[in-house]
């Protein structure tokens, strides 16, 4: 392993210099959700009880939205964008004719997805601060945790993409993402689910991210958070490893 993968990141930076509007669009999504669901729906719902405390619905939903946007950004970059690059634009074929290897390519693309995600997370977090939705100094970890969520989903997304044959297969991405988005204790506390379903939700990946962000931003910190963090780290490492191996086989038959 060498630092050569950084040049893959440099390539994406060069490409996006010319597509800054596309880049900016990434900021919009979580802000829309916060305004519509957090503020709008929040008016109707009132307060929520979590961890023995009562917080406004906005304050309850906002950390989850940070986790969701980290997931969506990472998945989008490593599925659609990644698929286009390896299947149609041939830019990976060009990279692999140089000293770069498949793992460098996977690492580079993942790093780019993370960098981009971090910029969005930071902006969204600044918005939460401005809205007065940050309750605890532990929230300094909110952006690094968003990076960790991004890493986990980027790894998994990239690995999944190596099995995709055409853009039609991307319907499956939606089938996975939407339930994760809706049912990871994103919009209501996990205690609202029946016990059996609670166990299922606790095993899903986005739930780890939502639990982490909510605890940090609302200041309800415990050792259990390390478990969530480990889950995400392992998910990212395994995904990256699988993606690197499969890419090698796909691009170098």
């Amino acid at each position, binding site marked *: 392993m060498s630092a050569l993968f950084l040049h893959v990141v440099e390539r994406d930076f060069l490409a996006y210099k010319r597509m800054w509007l596309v880049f900016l669009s990434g900021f919009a999504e979580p802000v829309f959700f916060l305004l519509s669901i957090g503020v709008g729906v929040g008016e109707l719902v009132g307060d929520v009880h979590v961890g023995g405390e009562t917080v406004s619905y906005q304050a309850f939903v906002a950390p989850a939205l940070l986790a969701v946007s980290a997931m969506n950004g990472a998945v989008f970059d490593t599925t659609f964008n990644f698929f286009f690059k390896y299947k149609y634009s041939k830019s990976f*074929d*060009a990279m692999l004719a140089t*000293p770069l290897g498949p793992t460098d390519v996977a690492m580079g693309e993942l790093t780019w997805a993370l960098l981009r995600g971090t910029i969005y997370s930071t902006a969204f977090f600044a918005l939460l601060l401005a809205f007065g939705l940050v309750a605890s100094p532990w929230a300094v970890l909110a952006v690094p945790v968003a990076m960790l969520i991004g890493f986990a989903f980027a790894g998994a997304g990239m690995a999944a993409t190596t099995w995709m044959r055409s853009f039609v297969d991307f319907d499956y991405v939606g089938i996975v993402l939407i339930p994760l988005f809706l049912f990871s204790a994103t919009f209501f506390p996990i205690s609202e689910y029946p016990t059996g379903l609670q166990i299922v939700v606790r095993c899903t990946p986005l739930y780890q991210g939502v639990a982490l962000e909510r605890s940090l931003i609302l200041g309800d910190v415990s050792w259990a958070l390390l478990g969530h963090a480990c889950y995400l780290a392992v998910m990212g490492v395994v995904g990256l490893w699988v993606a690197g191996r499969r890419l090698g086989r796909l691009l170098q038959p």
Partner: protein
Amino acid sequence: MSETPLIDARGLVKRFGDFTAVDHLDVQVQPGEAFGFLGPNGAGKTSTMRMIACVSQRDGGALSVLGMDPATEGSAIRARLGVVPQDDTLDLELTVRDNVLIYGRYFGLSRAETRRRADELLEFVQLTDRRDDRVDALSGGMRRRLTIARSLVNQPELVLLDEPTTGLDPQARHLVWERLYRLKRSGATLVLTTHYMDEAEQLCDRLVIMDGGRIVAEGSPRALIDRHSTRDVVELRFADEHAQHAALARLEQVGERREVLPDRVLVYTADGDADVERLTSDGPHPESLLVRRSTLEDVFLTLTGRSLEE
């Protein structure tokens, strides 16, 4: 040959499922040589090139490139190769100049050095005035030149070109040839695949003709012509099949070998002019008659047959 070959393949095999694309290939390329793989589509040229370029694993045999084994030292080998793949793998999201720049960075070159070389190379392939254009705005010939420029950014010792001029118009082909010729003169070792015989005759010191994953002939263009064809070829066209048929008996008496095609008869002979003189004094009256020197194309068609292989 005392020098160590840059490429040394012995019993090289590549399979895709049940299909054997490269079937026990033996090939050595010496430093400074311009070496060609000729063959019809599906002969195994590209599969061989991809194994040499360390982007495809071999399934059997031994292969050494620049004295190293592609299976274990692929990255180190690729660092010293220039590769012009069959399909231009240009980065469509980048400009012409950025394509060369980022490619240099993939090799770990410094920004300043890459910039210097990029400008020099764009000049070399006459694309300086298009440097800020997007790649999709370029013609096929320009893209090919850009791919060649890009492949030279690491100052490679060995340049691999897979069908460098396929699909180009005559002007573009000649420009590419001229640049490749200059490259060769500057001491680079060139390995190319082609199915254009004139390209092989122009550029290659030595070549192999491949068919069905195997080598069917090897040598310099001249030696191959001498060995597998005659000095001259006489091409005769007749008014109709009937006339052609009637003339065949007489044609049997000249030249070394005849090839009867639906539209004409080829007579392979050591002295075309003498034969034509003999034929026209008392012979059949073809509609048209052409005496030409034998080319690599004659060798190629003799060895690989005229039927279409896809």
